[in-house]
């Protein structure tokens, strides 16, 4: 059931085509695991909490640094040197007290038991090694995952459905290294917000997710392109 306060809080959702009270209840009963509380995880978690996702697990082992504040908009100067997961939890509870927020101040590799109980994973990480580990957990536990990555003015996004779409390892090799730490806050905001959109569509059953397609966002020229992908024959993770 939705309370009268919830009906008012989410009233603008009910104006969206196909989004009725049952959709909102689905969100309320959902659990999303957000891997990474950085530039992507910040906007994604804020929008999911605000939208009424019932349980959000946010995992990050790092503490807030001054150089994070150009993009990680959950944090303020008062959070410097504090745990990202704990600081994010405090802010997210302020945005929506009815969402249960579970902070995990640990490495993704040490959080597998918490991942396996979730309905959806958001890959908001910042390195390919951890991303591929998360991808293997998604595949093993058959939990869909929304992947996004950003660099400078560029971003990429795809929705992975284990057993159905290409997995991350179908198009990213184990030895891939990030070449740059360049990033604009707004770019991370766009990609993280798109992850939230994909999550909301999937959890409510509205719209069409980016399954089997890689969206490339070029904010240098403000152009978007989508490419269809197929599973890699012999993929070490999903074949």
């Amino acid at each position, binding site marked *: 059931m939705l309370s009268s306060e919830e009906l008012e809080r989410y009233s603008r959702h009910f104006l969206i085509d196909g989004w009725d009270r049952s959709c909102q209840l689905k969100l309320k009963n959902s659990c999303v695991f957000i891997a990474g509380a950085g530039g992507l995880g910040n906007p994604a978690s804020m929008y999911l909490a605000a939208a009424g996702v019932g349980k959000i697990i946010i995992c990050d082992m790092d503490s807030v640094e001054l150089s994070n504040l150009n993009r990680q908009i959950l944090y303020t100067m008062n959070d410097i040197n504090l745990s990202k997961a704990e600081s994010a939890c405090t802010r997210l509870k302020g945005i929506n007290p009815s969402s249960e927020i579970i902070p995990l101040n640990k490495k993704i590799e040490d959080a597998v038991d918490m991942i396996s109980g979730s309905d959806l994973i958001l890959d908001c*990480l*910042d390195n390919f090694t951890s991303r591929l580990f998360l991808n293997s957990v998604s595949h093993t536990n058959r939990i869909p995952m929304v992947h996004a990555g950003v*660099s400078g003015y*560029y971003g990429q996004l795809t929705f992975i459905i284990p057993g159905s779409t290409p997995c991350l390892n179908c*198009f990213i090799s184990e030895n*891939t290294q*990030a070449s740059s730490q360049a990033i604009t806050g707004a770019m991370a905001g766009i990609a993280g917000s798109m992850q939230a959109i994909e999550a909301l569509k999937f959890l409510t059953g509205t719209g069409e997710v980016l399954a089997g397609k890689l969206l490339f966002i*070029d904010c*240098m020229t403000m152009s978007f392109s989508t490419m269809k992908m197929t599973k890699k024959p012999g993929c070490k993770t999903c074949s």
Partner: protein
Amino acid sequence: MKATVKLFASLRTGRFDLSEIELVNGSSITDLLELLQIEQKEAAIIFINGVHAEYTSNIKECDQIAIFPPIGGG
């Protein structure tokens, strides 16, 4: 033989977005990267006709190749 090559993000700088490239029969992705003066570590994601390709993958007439740099920040 000819193949269509689409470059993304920083790989476009000083090169092109989309171009039809003339290649010697039997050319591989490595050959193409050398021709375009792209270091292998800068070509993180490569697709031939929507399927992930390796550096050693052979290119065929009319293949559609897409090359992305590593975009893994977050």
